[in-house]
């Protein structure tokens, strides 16, 4: 199916398997969004495998092969340090985020992992301000089954929005 992304290698894949898997991934993404928007941010690292990476990267760097990220987490420790910053160390104005994650696509199913992509948009509400678009982009993720849960082994969030409206405290 030429219109599918070129990286897909699912020729052996039974269609219904992909649909079922997507359902489970959608649940993962929904819980993930909930964690960032309304949940306890300290659970954010739980969405990741023990050996994991998380990168939030501007589209221009990604497209040009430049390695610099907006947030670079090379291990679960980094994720926990980010949580600590959100909770304890960073100074920032009160805000509410709302993540809209749509178009989850399974792009690869392998024996020990799956790959998936999705679009995201984040809306931000600040005190005495109306709600505004904060960021948009897409995820390119590798997911594994670990400790009875689907977890992100590699999470790559590429933000279209090159100009970030002031600061980005809470991960995407």
């Amino acid at each position: 199916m030429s219109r599918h992304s070129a990286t897909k290698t699912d020729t052996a894949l039974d269609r219904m398997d992909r649909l079922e898997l997507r359902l489970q991934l959608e649940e993962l993404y929904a819980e993930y969004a909930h964690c960032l928007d309304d949940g306890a941010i300290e659970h954010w690292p739980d969405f990741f495998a023990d050996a994991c990476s998380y990168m939030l990267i501007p589209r221009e760097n990604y497209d040009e092969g430049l390695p610099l990220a907006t947030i670079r987490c090379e291990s679960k420790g980094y994720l926990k340090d980010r949580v600590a910053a959100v909770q304890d160390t960073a100074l920032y104005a009160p805000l509410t985020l709302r993540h809209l994650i749509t178009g989850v696509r399974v792009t690869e199913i392998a024996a020990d992992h799956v790959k998936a992509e999705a679009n995201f948009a984040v809306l931000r509400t600040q005190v005495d301000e109306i709600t505004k678009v904060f960021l948009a982009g897409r995820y390119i993720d590798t997911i594994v089954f670990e400790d009875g849960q689907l977890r992100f082994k590699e999470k790559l969030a590429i933000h279209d929005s090159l100009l970030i409206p002031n600061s980005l405290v809470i991960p995407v």
Partner: protein
Amino acid sequence: MAEAHTGKRAERRWPDAGIHRIPYWIYTDAEIYAREQARIFKGPSWNYVGLTAEVPVPGSFRRSFIGDIPVVLTRDGDGGLNVFVNKCAHRGVQFCQKQRGTANEFICPYHQWTYDLTGKLIGVPFRRGLKRQGGMPAAFDLDDHHLQRLRVAERNGVVFASFADELPPLEEYLGESMLEYFDRLFDGRKLKILGYQRQRIPSNWKLMFENIKDPYHASLLHVFLITFGLFRADNPSAVRLDETGRHSALISAKGEQKATSDTAEMGRFKADMKLNDAKLLTPVKEFPGNTTVVMQTIWPNIIFQQQTNTLATRHIVPRGPGAFDLHWTYFGYQDDDEEMTRIRLRQANLMGPAGYVSIDDSEVMEFSQDGIAAFPDNEGVLEMGGYDTDDVDHIVTESAIRGFYKYYREAMDL
């Protein structure tokens, strides 16, 4: 978001007290903003426009800004660097819309006036008309319609440009002591671009300079800097200004994460905080001496950052009185090995829109603008470390900010 009360134009007079009082109308007044663009950014200043590593080969170009004025930086066929306005000489089109790229020439999309890589007009379609009809008048001379070209100065991979015809050479403009710090970071090795970050910060652009020229806040605001001893009042530190006061450098050496008699006044120090993954901060010594931090600000639009091993330029692009864009260009050196690059990239977590340190700064700048906007006739107080603009060997001072405004007043005739 308070609306600025900028009605009473008559009172735009600097407080008699001088540079340790900053009138708040300079952050919100639209006329002051326009004057800044005209007198400062179009005036006798060397403005940062980019790095030569961004225009590595003949034909390379990048969009840039001087103040909020769009320009293009190119490398021409002879390897020369050129900066010209991103505004067609015909009817004003911002012809270069691509962030970066390579080109043999610039063709304005509207009527395809064509400029070479130096900004010279080299072609006007139908200039002689068609079938003997129309075309440009006889008096029309391509040479009268080149893109406005700026003076260009380059040093060790950093490119500056100026709208002014008359101004001192870059080195003289920087001054001896600033040149030293400049050359420390840009030591002649080729640079390697690691990537970009961009923010739109809802505050006046001068608050960015105040922030970086203000070592006083670093020991108080930034948990990360204080706790991990990256930049702290009780580390060996210094503040240096050039003779005019417009440039400055904040210099410091990394200390330890330990409580001392001095951390008592640093309310946000966290003696027991530990990183879960210490790789984030693991430093590598790469510069001579003990200094691990140099934050250098060069009038009127650039910050050069060394914080341990994370190196960047921070380019300030004003967007009206109440906002500016901050363009971060992270770099290393061509001779960095993979591990060194990785270390720089990791430490970049401190900086930028999501940086453990920089978040604090950009948020507090928003708070400042929000606090200031409703009080155009009030004044900020700049008395830490006295009233002067002297160099000192500590960071409990606002002298570099006073220096900035000393020169600002001259430049703006305020």
